[in-house]
């Protein structure tokens, strides 16, 4: 029997509403994402990208199908076990950062360090994310890009095996977005974390190992990219 991929999704379905108002958002998605891959997920608005990401993150239950993370089908987990799953395996990065406003940059990162049995050193992360000089500042005292770096630090500090990124550059300008993508590339390289990035930015496909495209709840593209470009060379 072939070895299962790190993130193995089979026949995943999800719908909202009842009766005539029922909308099937995901229509039997199946894909495999290997450990250490950067996987990018494209699709127009309403195609089910965020729903897919939320389900992998254990934030929304599936109607049917399975999501294996390692050997665990998270669709079978109870609420309490899902909390443990998120606590141990996951890092989340949001488009709007969602930092705690009255904690400093360093403390925001420590919020998730606290949850991990094997956290990364916060000082190293601050240095590596270019936030060392800003470590004592509050979110409203730093730029959007710096806030997103902080959010990445917060997600990374747990040393998660899976990083889920929902439009991580969606709120940032071109240069800042490039900086963040370079950072994510470096994180992937240095920490070997598997990343699933939901984005509208088509350029990101060039730095991703695995490309998925959703259209009307079904995968219209599921390809591997063997001609990677460094993030620094991306343009859009």
């Amino acid at each position, binding site marked *: 029997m072939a070895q299962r991929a790190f993130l193995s999704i089979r026949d995943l379905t999800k719908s909202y509403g009842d009766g005539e108002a029922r909308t099937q958002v995901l229509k039997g998605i199946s894909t495999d994402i290997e450990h250490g891959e950067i996987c990018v997920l494209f699709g127009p608005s309403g195609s089910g990208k965020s729903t897919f990401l939320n389900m992998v993150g254990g934030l*929304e239950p599936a109607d049917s199908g399975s999501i294996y993370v390692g050997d665990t089908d998270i669709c079978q987990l109870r609420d309490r076990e899902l909390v443990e799953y998120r606590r141990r395996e996951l890092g989340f990065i949001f488009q709007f950062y969602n930092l705690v*406003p009255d*904690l400093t940059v360093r403390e925001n990162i420590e919020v998730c360090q*606290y949850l991990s049995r094997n956290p990364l050193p916060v000082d190293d992360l601050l240095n590596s994310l270019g936030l060392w000089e800003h470590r004592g500042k509050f979110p409203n005292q730093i730029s959007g890009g710096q*806030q997103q770096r902080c959010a990445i630090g917060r997600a990374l500090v747990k040393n998660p095996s899976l990083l889920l990124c929902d439009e991580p550059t969606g709120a940032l300008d071109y240069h800042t977005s490039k900086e963040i993508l370079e950072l994510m590339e470096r994180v992937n390289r240095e920490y070997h974390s598997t990343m699933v990035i939901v984005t509208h930015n088509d350029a990101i496909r060039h730095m991703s190992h695995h490309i998925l495209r959703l259209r009307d709840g079904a995968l219209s593209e599921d390809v591997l990219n063997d001609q990677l470009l460094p993030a620094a060379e991306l343009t859009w």
Partner: protein
Amino acid sequence: MSPLNKRLPRDLIHNLGKYLGIFLLFLFAIAMGSGYLSAAHSIEVIQGEMHERHRVEDFHFVTQFEAAKSSLEAIEAMGCTIYEDFTADVPLAFAGESRDMNCRLIDQDKRREVNRGYYFEGRAPAADNEIALDRMFCKNHDLHVGATVSINGHEATMVGICSLSDYECLMEKNTDMIFNSTTFTIGLVTPEGMQAMAGGKRDYRYDGVLNDRTMDLVARTSFERDMADLLADKGEVLTDLVDYEFDNKAIFFATDDVSGDQVMWQVLVGLLVVIMAFVFVVLTNATIEQESAVIGTLLASGYRKREIIGHYMVLPTLIGVLGCVAGNALGLTYMSTPMQELYYGSYSLPPYEFSFSPQVFVYTTVVPFVLLEVVTLVGLMRKLRFTPLAFLRREIASRSRRNTLALPERLSFVRRFQLRVFLRNLSHFVVLFFGISFCSLFLLFGLCLMPLVEHYAQMLSQDVVANHIYFLKAPLELEGTPEQRASYAAVERLMETDDPLSDLGFIGYARVLLRTMDLDEDAHPVNTTDNGESAIAQAEKFSAASFEVPHVITDSSEEITVYGIEQDSRYWSEVDVSGGAVVVGAGLAEKCRIKPGDTVTLTDKYTNKVYELMATSVWGSSANMNIYMDRAALNRMVDEEEDNFAGYASDEELVIDQRYLAIDVTPDSMGSTADQMQESFGDMMDMVVAFAIPVYLILVYLLTKTVIDRSSRYISYMKVFGYQDGEINRLYVRAITTTVMVSLVASLPFVIWLVRFFVSFAMDRYSGNLEIYIEPMLLVRVVAIGAAAYAVVALAHMWHIRRVSLSEALKVQE
């Protein structure tokens, strides 16, 4: 320790207003609640111990004339000890005081075994020109040891300030509505002092202590009835019989007042706690809504709900604990003295000793704290039932239909916007309405009592139909021949003299005795002073008898007077008692729900005899607690001679033999009731008002601040769009202002209803019918004070709005 806790000090500083508000609310509620209830509990303990500690009587009775030794021995044989305790009410005067004042002289030697006293300053009198007066009376008149007073025309030095255990409150007569420590006092004197200052004037009072002091009220009153029967059989005429617990107001009035007030305070503290609970619900919900994205992120990152709940519980818990500790500290130290003064400023109680009450601690501290914890916890748990995603999407605020209500377009944009603010925050405003009602209740309660008392005194004066209503201890004829007057003067002379033979000499004694030989023993005595033909002609006899009438709501009764008046009375000219008519005073009719045609049940508490009368009409002011009927009919009813009478109504002042005169009621004397009530309630009412204003400020601030806080992002947007602070104030602060003002006015009917309820409750134990009369001007004052307090809050909001930064809209977009 969770790194989240690092934000706690910053959260505290950032939301200082909110947490300070909660802290102050706790502080005020607990300081007032525990301060008052602890003081009241300690006083109750002191009062509870008095019966044994100071050997307070179980009963006392007064006879018309000195009781025979054999009569007293007969009652003692029933199972009690009787102590002779003759008193004399005499006029008192001192420099700087022009009012008529009454001093009840008491022989201190008679108070060694029963109803013992205690000294606060000075010492017991040792000479016949020395006296010790009551502490409250001295306090009210700023009298100090060494002061010279005139007692019944004799100069005396005040050597001590004291209180008597059977005069915890200076109740001049048991039928008085309220005590009187302004024109009445007790005075302890030596036996020689008594003789020197009172002459022969005596009220023949006997104090009784039962052999079995554990006898309950039912057994005791039964014993007392048997005793009254025995005294009557022995030919003694009882003019008063008072059980210490059942009807001795001088003893139980203060106890009743303390316990009655406690119930009222408990209700008020309870109400405040409920309001606080609502405030906590609103604040907790607002906090969670505000922190929605953060909570969502934490949940998505793997934080457990209990960790998040634990985090959000820390500050309320800390504030609650601090508030409880500080509140108790303030209540039991700083507030203790003013709270004690509420009673020590009115009653002659023994020195204060603090007694800890676990119940008070639970009620004032544990209950509010647990409530804060439970409400916050349940609020958090209820909100945290939402999924992490719902938090991330900020979908946790209830999406009521009212939020999406279509508003008429004919309304201006500003009006619609203000309406949206109102609708969005409706739940806050509902709590605000009740908070405002509660504070207005306190304010109105504090403001209304004094005018109410003045109104009551006016009503009482209206019912005094003559310039003087003289009550007699026994019938005394004003009309008589010079010979008759001389005979009765001789009797008086003999009564005043302990040893007539040595005092008057043999010849003098014989002459006096000869004069008494002319007495007609079957006729009423005749006044020794001739008041003149015209004065006698205008004076009108009336008879009177005291009865108990049952209250409707509580299992208590009202002591009332039934007047027997002439059918063509010149004084009660509006009262028609012809044809067997029974006219009920309007106050009595209101309090005991008596309508014309109803049967009124009267009970004679001394004989337990029950009489039934049919009310034919209602007359008099709302303070009138009397019943009027034909004099002869009343006399027949109580088995007296048809021409019996109890006093005179007279527009002219009469000189009446002191030994027969019980009391002279004048319209002016009613004013002293109002004076006394103002004296005793004034401080309490000031405190109620002083409490209401800060609580009002805090409640309104907390509840309206959440409206500003949850709108701060939109306020920031407004600024980005180019709105000026004034324009934003117009949109937000004016919406709040309108709601506050409407609440202030709209809550008034509810508040008036509550005030009526509380005042009736508070006044239920007082004799008489206090009409709850609220001047419209008071309502204006309540609204004005509320509006002025809100103006301070509104200024704080304007300052807050000015501080909302543009970055809120620009940086944290979502």
